[in-house]
């Protein structure tokens, strides 16, 4: 089995956020991403930060887990902050370190931009933390429904995504198995010069591709035997329904947006 942790991997739960319609979640996040760029003073930033933090607590996912998932992003956030400190030259000089003058404006702008960045990442990772990949797929299929008119293969795309999701664990297992078999035949994947290690990948990749193609062929045959002939005339077991709680959450969010526009400075 693979012990690798995937960033933003779904954490099962039954919170209000978990139960929200995935389309609603995607819509709110989309709006949030736009609205974040309109925040420009302490009050408006506070409103957005409060919203993000409250939402995080509602999910009941351990904070530790969320922050750990953001580990690779911390570097970027700190980098952005430092970059602003150095480059921006507005306001009064606060301190001078090693010949670098740090301006007050730089500090404020650095903090603002880093916070904006952090909020964006936090809110989007909440989507994947509280929504199964298949729900996201369903939501995307539904939201792109209109594109069917211009012959965009919405159903096929969604099916492709859901089958990929279904086969990820299978292929990980397979990779583990084949790499062990080749290691037993004397392949060393871990040490040696880069050129040798790249060469060592071939005996792993070829069998993986061969097996993936074989699986695809058999799966296609099984799907055909089970009556699959494309999206036409299909019914669906999984159905998305907007509930009243979804609408309440949306109204609440819109209220926040209005609050933001009232408090931001013009």
């Amino acid at each position, binding site marked *: 089995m693979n*012990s690798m942790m995937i960033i933003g991997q779904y954490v099962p739960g039954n919170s209000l956020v978990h139960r929200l319609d995935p389309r609603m979640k995607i819509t709110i996040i989309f709006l949030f991403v736009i609205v974040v760029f309109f925040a420009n003073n302490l009050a408006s930033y506070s409103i957005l930060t409060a919203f993000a933090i409250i939402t995080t607590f509602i999910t009941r996912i351990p904070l530790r887990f969320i922050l750990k998932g953001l580990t690779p992003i911390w570097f970027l956030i700190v980098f952005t902050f430092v970059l602003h400190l150095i480059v921006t030259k507005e306001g009064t000089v606060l301190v001078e370190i090693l010949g670098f003058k740090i301006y007050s404006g730089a500090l404020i702008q650095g903090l603002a931009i880093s916070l904006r960045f952090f909020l964006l990442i936090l809110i989007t990772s909440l989507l994947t933390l509280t929504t199964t990949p298949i729900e996201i797929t369903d939501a995307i299929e539904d939201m792109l429904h209109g594109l069917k008119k211009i012959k965009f293969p919405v159903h096929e795309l969604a099916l492709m995504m859901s089958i990929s999701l279904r086969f990820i664990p299978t292929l990980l297992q397979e990779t583990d198995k084949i790499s062990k*078999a080749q290691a037993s*035949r004397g392949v060393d994947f871990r040490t040696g010069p880069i050129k040798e290690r790249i060469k060592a990948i071939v005996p792993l990749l070829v069998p993986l591709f*061969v097996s993936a193609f074989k699986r695809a062929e058999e799966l296609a045959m099984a799907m055909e035997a089970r009556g699959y002939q494309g999206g036409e005339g299909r019914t669906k077991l999984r159905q998305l329904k907007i509930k009243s709680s979804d609408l309440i959450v949306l109204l609440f969010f819109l209220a926040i947006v209005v609050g933001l526009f009232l408090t931001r400075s013009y």
Partner: protein
Amino acid sequence: MDITFKDVNYIYQANSPFAHKALEKLSFHIPSGTFVAVVGHTGSGKSTLIQHLNGLLTPTSGEVQIGDYYITSEKKPENLKELRSKVGVVFQYPEHQLFDETVEKDISFGPRNFGVAEDEINARIKEIIPAVGLDEKLLERSPFDLSGGQMRRVAIAGVLAIKPEILVLDEPTAGLDPRGQREIMDMFYALHKEQNLTTFLVTHSMEDAVRYADHVIIMNKGTKYMEGTPEEVFTQKEALNQVQLDVPEIIQFLNAFESRFGISLAFKRQSVRDLATQIKEAFEGVKSDE
């Protein structure tokens, strides 16, 4: 090479919420030259066990000793590659590991990695090809053009070409038809005898365990449940049934025979032919007593 496990524990994904014990306090000693059958359900720890035999996995605690090589949680042997050149592993569905352009190149892949000289490799291939029941004409073909049974044989040849001293077989006949199964198992058994190998056979087939093994280890939930000669292990019907394993069919029959006729025929790994003679003699014996 002797094989010794001392209190081996193995935990998958240790220190994570998904941690689970795959091996628990596993100890056994196998003298060189033994044919061992490891039997147990899927998930009983059989596969984890055999992956310790060539250092694919290292124990979470405890010690594995293969000949002069020691594997513990602290240290993998520095000469891991050398160990792997002495332990050949035939995984389940080994044909999935084929990758090279020709059958010949694929078979020589293992020995080449272990630094075997080219003419030695060629000599080995000459010997192995007929042993695994393949035709030399196939050597230049792509392994992917062959039938399933032929691919299996090529993959096995690729492991045998390493000339291992220990041969590990993880259900090597799964998916083959009865004739293919018999041919492959007989081939491994002949090789085991001829080259005085130590063989580990992971199998679900009690019949194969009875037919080939000198020693049987029954695994259950990561622990060693039973160990001994086939006669010792397979006559304990109750204990085996408790972990939902069946006894070999011949023993099932002997038990049913005893309860029907009150005549107890001992299980001595006899052939069906000998069994028939025994039944006849038993019947005549009972009659002449009267």
